[in-house]
């Protein structure tokens, strides 16, 4: 700040606090709703202070789930976790290998492969819903973990990122490794992998969130309640038709669905920001 005027400082803090409160307001209400019995929520107005059913609601959600859906939330949480970890590990693994091939080898059609990976940027799932569904159905991967994970693990962004990282590795290292008799696999494992550790971690944070918030894809390919992710579970809990939605359970599930990725952003903020900036370059 260039000038130091007291009223301006106060105004700045005031605006920021209002901003923070507006951002947090929907979450606060969701939290309040997750601590009351359904009867209390159906009153008008609903309470604005937390109630005393917190443990009961969360235990019911995790243990048995809502009446409308035959799967407990712990299972959905497990499914979301498998999907998010599977996608992030998968993306990082296949992108590193591809980038390694493109940077450290010369072979026919090298650039053709590079452009082929690049074009996937322009083909998000949303623009090829039906045919992709059909491929996965033909491969018998509906309602399965591979079906949730594999179609989403191709990554142009991650491949570019690792290409940049590898290009910045000094050639002297490669020469030294070669003189010492290290082959490409050894070089990759003992030199490139440790050198890209922070990039891998940053990318993992971003890709974990990407995997956790997937909605359209699991919506298409999971019809078996055993494979519902948290977001699909929430959707099914709300869509009860004529019945009364169990809002206290829905809101408890919503809080649980936000928890893992939000904790990651808050506690790994440095890696998160690094990953975000790098993947958007």
């Amino acid at each position, binding site marked *: 700040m260039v000038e130091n005027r007291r009223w301006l400082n106060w105004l700045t803090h005031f605006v920021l606090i209002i901003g923070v409160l507006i951002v947090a307001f929907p979450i606060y209400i969701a939290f309040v709703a997750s601590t009351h019995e359904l009867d209390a*929520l159906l009153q008008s107005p609903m309470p604005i202070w937390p109630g005393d059913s917190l443990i009961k609601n969360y235990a019911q959600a995790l243990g048995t789930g809502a009446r409308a859906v035959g799967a407990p939330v712990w299972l959905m949480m497990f499914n979301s976790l498998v999907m998010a970890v599977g996608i992030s590990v998968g993306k990082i693994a*296949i992108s590193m290998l591809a980038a390694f091939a493109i940077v450290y080898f010369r072979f026919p059609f090298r650039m053709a492969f590079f452009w082929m990976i690049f074009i996937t940027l322009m083909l998000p799932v949303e623009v090829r*819903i*039906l045919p992709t569904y059909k491929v996965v159905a033909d491969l018998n991967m509906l309602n399965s973990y591979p079906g949730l994970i594999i*179609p989403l693990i191709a990554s142009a962004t991650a491949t570019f990122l690792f290409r940049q990282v590898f290009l910045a590795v000094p*050639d002297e290292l490669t020469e030294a490794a070669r003189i010492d008799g290290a082959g490409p696999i050894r070089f990759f494992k003992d030199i490139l992998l440790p050198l890209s550790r922070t990039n891998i971690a940053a990318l993992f944070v971003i890709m974990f*969130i990407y995997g956790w918030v997937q*909605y359209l894809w699991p919506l298409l390919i999971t019809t078996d309640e055993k494979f519902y992710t948290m977001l699909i579970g929430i959707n099914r809990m709300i869509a009860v038709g004529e019945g009364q939605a169990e809002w206290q359970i829905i809101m408890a599930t919503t809080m649980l*669905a936000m928890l893992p*990725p939000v904790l990651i952003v808050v506690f790994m903020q440095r890696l998160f920001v690094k990953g975000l900036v790098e993947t958007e370059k």
Partner: protein
Amino acid sequence: MEKRVVFRQTFLPYLLLAPQVLVTLVFFFWPASQALYQSVLREDAFGLSSEFIWFENFSALFAEAEYLHSLEVTALFSLAVATTAMTIALYLAVQADRVIHGAMVYKTLLIWPYAVAPAVAGVLWMFLFNPSMGIVVFALRAVGYDWNHALNGHQAMALVTVSAAWKQISYNFLFFLAGMQAIPKSLIEAAAIDGARPARRFWTIVFPLLAPTTFFLLVMNVVYAFFDTFGIIHQVTEGGPAGATNILVYKVFHDGFLGLDLGGSAAQSVVLMAIVILLTVFQFQYIERKVHY
């Protein structure tokens, strides 16, 4: 930039590329080519026979009032989301850039919604604006305004816009703040010495220097509103009431997956692909500019 020192194996690089290329071929190129192919065919409902009809699916699509309406809704929605999310984020970033003590705390408290799924953002706001039990609706009624987004198209649009913009503020805030912190302090100080007030400094120095960031964010926000908000629409309004929030991505899902109109849905997919290509080109334009800056 190329490596001087490379390895000489001939078979290994193909093996390394294989997983990525295989996934790309099976789950990206094959489906996309199918969409292209089906968009010029007419198929009966059982997929037994098909007929090549050139661009009839496309001309039918653009003659359809519903589709034109969906285009309009999408344009309005993405514009509204981008302006709302970017204006609020820029304003907050300007304030956060001024703070000396506690800047980190504000930053943390403002960026976490990035990790909230669009579908969850939709649920949160839908709960606040639930016509029968929402707390905001109760407050609105108290001041004499009746809210029911299940019946009123404008209210439905407002609700999905707020949900989508709320989640996107964090992203924009982060990039605006980073952009502002990259502006040399000496520039601002020089202007202050010349007697320029904060508002004037913002409009004549900070804002123009942020132009590349703003342009980049505009593209990213439009991409977000086009493609990533499917969860919000599906969760909150299902495209309704009467198509008031039926954005293109929701319509392609609805017509293809629930309506089983293969040719029409494929034509819609192809139009969406064209839009993505256009937006990607714009995005790369930004990178060029950044280099020249």
